[in-house]
């Protein structure tokens, strides 16, 4: 097994109207490179991403990213979201509607003057081939363009891992193949691990050198590249 970048060992019980509804009991390790996370809807894929990002907290367990502890119930560690350095591409992108594409991307850039940030944001947009929409607001962008801007924004913040929650679900079929190639290329360039959630079998097959499958809140299959 390759050196793992991320280890997750957590449990969480969810409740609906005070009754236990869904239980998550996950144990997994993710290596560098591209990892596809699949499973039927409701199996806990998005929840896993949110646990890693710190948007929700597990009941018990430990999450470690690049030998940095993000969460550890035994030692009462729960690093707040901004300190986790996790790039998140939300399913509906969550681009800030009151900012242009380039403002969205420069928002997460941590150091530099205003113009340096802007230059770096423009570079990121160019890398994802959306520099021509830099001055448009999200409502003026197509699904594919929004997806690219969202990925550019996540990567511009220099995260240690990128989490992509079904990023192509709102993109038309023709654009998908091209975007998949680009996402793979961007992953290689960035050098950080990507976790890519999809329940599209074709996408999973194509991307999945490393693949983790969830079912009912548990890992049922883990294929990690050598």
């Amino acid at each position: 097994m390759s050196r793992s970048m991320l280890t997750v060992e957590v449990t969480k019980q969810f409740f609906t109207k005070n009754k236990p509804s869904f239980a998550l009991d996950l144990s997994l390790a993710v290596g560098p490179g591209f990892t596809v996370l699949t499973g039927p809807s409701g199996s806990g894929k998005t929840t896993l991403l949110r646990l890693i990002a710190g948007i929700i907290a597990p009941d018990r367990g430990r999450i470690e990213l690049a030998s940095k502890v993000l969460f550890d119930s035994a030692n009462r560690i729960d690093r707040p979201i901004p300190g986790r350095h996790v790039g998140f591409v939300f399913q509906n992108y969550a681009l800030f509607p009151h900012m242009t594409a380039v403002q969205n991307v420069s928002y997460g850039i941590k150091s530099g003057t205003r113009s340096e940030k802007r230059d770096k944001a423009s570079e990121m947009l160019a890398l994802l081939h959306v520099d021509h929409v830099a001055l448009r607001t999200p409502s003026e962008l197509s699904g594919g363009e929004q997806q690219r801007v969202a990925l550019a924004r996540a990567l511009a913040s220099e995260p240690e891992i990128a989490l992509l929650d079904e990023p192509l679900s709102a993109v038309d079929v023709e654009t998908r193949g091209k975007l998949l190639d680009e996402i793979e290329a961007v992953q290689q360039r960035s050098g950080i691990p990507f976790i890519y959630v999809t329940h599209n079998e074709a996408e999973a097959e194509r991307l999945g050198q490393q693949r983790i499958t969830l079912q009912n809140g548990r890992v049922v299959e883990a294929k990690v590249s050598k």
Partner: protein
Amino acid sequence: MIWDALKLSLLVVSVATAIVGVIGLLFSYLLAKTNFRGKEFLDAALTLPLVLPPTVTGYYLIVLLGRRGLIGSFLYDLTGWSVAFTWQGAVIAAVVVSLPLMIKASRASIETVDPQYEMASFTLGKGRIATFLRVTLPLARRGIYAGLVLAFARALGEFGATLMIAGNIPGRTQTMPLAIYEAVASGNERQAQLLALVLTGVSIAAVYFTNRLSHSEVHG
């Protein structure tokens, strides 16, 4: 008398609206985005002046801030100054009665901002304050403007609580609504008419702007 009242009203209302804007946003944020013990109580206490007769609100202000009041006596011993019968007293009365209107509008607006945007901001390394200022506030701005306009209009019309804590001293604490009362009481028809017209105009403008702001609520 008209110009004195107008000038004083503008001073009192602009200071009050500025204060309401700052503390109203603070309370709106606390009520909309956080959970803490006593939240229900705080919410109720801040809403109370909306339903209390203003004279009752004014009475409580005297009990709290008057020269012999709970806080006021302390302040008076310390500085020899009291807010009673000053324009600052009128500002406090205006703040207390108009704050609930600001909070109602801005809190509702802040609550409708999709938390996903805030989550996105956190994952981009921004803390709570930066996220509030750069994401939540701009997305909730229409409700906030509407709240400010309503608070401004309410502060401008404030009568009862002002009369109780600040009195009705021409040139010092006599705001426009008080001046109207005095003009009518002393049979000065023309002056009452003029003041009433000015206040009506401002109120119509306030309603117009709040309607425009709430109807063009587009961002979510």
